[in-house]
């Protein structure tokens, strides 16, 4: 991985860590990231054919920005509370798109794979962080019309894991087994 690609991948973790403290937020993030990354990934080879150099990067940025703006509009209309909870992080989903573009020009399905990996990681982190950090699962499920599915466990949870540093620790612990499991 080149240095800019590594930087973009690292920055792409920001929305993952920022918005995965509750499972419902992670679910919202996954629902946006999967079609976004798949769509951007599918269009990237086409963009590569028609644009080169600086124009390619401007085009990629525009594409990612448009995708996120679209998701922003839809969430604001159909899941307003979730939109408010995801607010700054939603826009940072453009960063994993940039990471996708920075990797060597690949196949159209690379986006789908990246989207699946991102979404699964978000759901995994969301489940663990809410379970350990808040001692609940799918609290605020009504944000996505899943109001009756919420669970609460006994105890108060470990607040560290609900905050970003705890998320980083969990991610680090998950990294090695995940790298082995995923090709």
């Amino acid at each position: 991985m080149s240095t800019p690609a590594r930087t973009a991948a690292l920055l792409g973790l920001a929305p993952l860590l920022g918005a995965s403290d509750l499972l419902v937020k992670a679910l919202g993030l996954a629902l946006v990231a999967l079609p976004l990354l798949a769509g951007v990934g599918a269009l990237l080879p086409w963009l590569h054919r028609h644009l080169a150099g600086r124009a390619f990067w401007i085009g990629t940025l525009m594409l990612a920005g448009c995708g996120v703006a679209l998701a922003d509009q839809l969430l604001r209309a159909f899941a307003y509370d979730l939109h408010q909870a995801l607010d700054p992080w939603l826009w940072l989903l453009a960063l994993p798109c940039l990471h996708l573009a920075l990797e060597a020009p690949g196949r159209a399905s690379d986006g789908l794979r990246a989207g699946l990996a991102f979404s699964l990681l978000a759901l995994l982190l969301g489940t663990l962080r809410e379970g350990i950090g808040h001692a609940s699962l799918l609290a605020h499920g009504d944000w996505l019309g899943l109001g009756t599915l919420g669970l609460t466990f006994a105890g108060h949870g470990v607040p560290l894991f609900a905050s970003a540093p705890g998320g980083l620790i969990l991610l680090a612990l998950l990294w090695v087994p995940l790298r082995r499991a995923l090709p």
Partner: protein
Amino acid sequence: MNGRSLACLLVAAALAMGLLTALHGVLAPRQQAAAEASAERALLDLLPAGSYDNHPLQDALPLTGADDLGSPSPATAWRARQGERLVAVLLPVRARGYEGPIDLLLAIAPDGRLLHSKVLAHRETPGIGDRIEASRSPWLGNLAGRNLAEQPGEWRVRADGGDVDQIAGATITSRAVVAGVQAGLRYFDAHRDALLGATP
């Protein structure tokens, strides 16, 4: 960047902007309604769900003499109703806290009893004074059910010889909130007819 790429990008940007603007135009009324419903839910969570069936934020009443509440004028009260029956008057109060103003919202029953109260905004010390927030400590809930007919001692914190437990380390904040709630109930008693009368 050659001229052809630039033209392509400009056309794509114009198209994208047009599409997003059109989408926004279609969704704007729905977004507006969702934002209002969310604001209403957030503001009204101090009333039990199902205890009212009107839209209290639309049943607004401009307040006269709001200086007594410490609130910046023009201040507004809202009324929650179940059918024809008035359930609660929502009164904004601004108390003078330790670090700055504490904005409270009181839900007062028609008989002058405090149903519930919540903190809308404050600048109190994180970890100490912010325990007036319902999400951090149940302290504020202890004031619910009180009315002005109680003994004066029941409206003072323990540090002042009263009956209300103050938040440890945040006596000034606690005192300010108790005084603010009391000022709100006094205002309610003084303006009772205006607040309970006038249907929209």
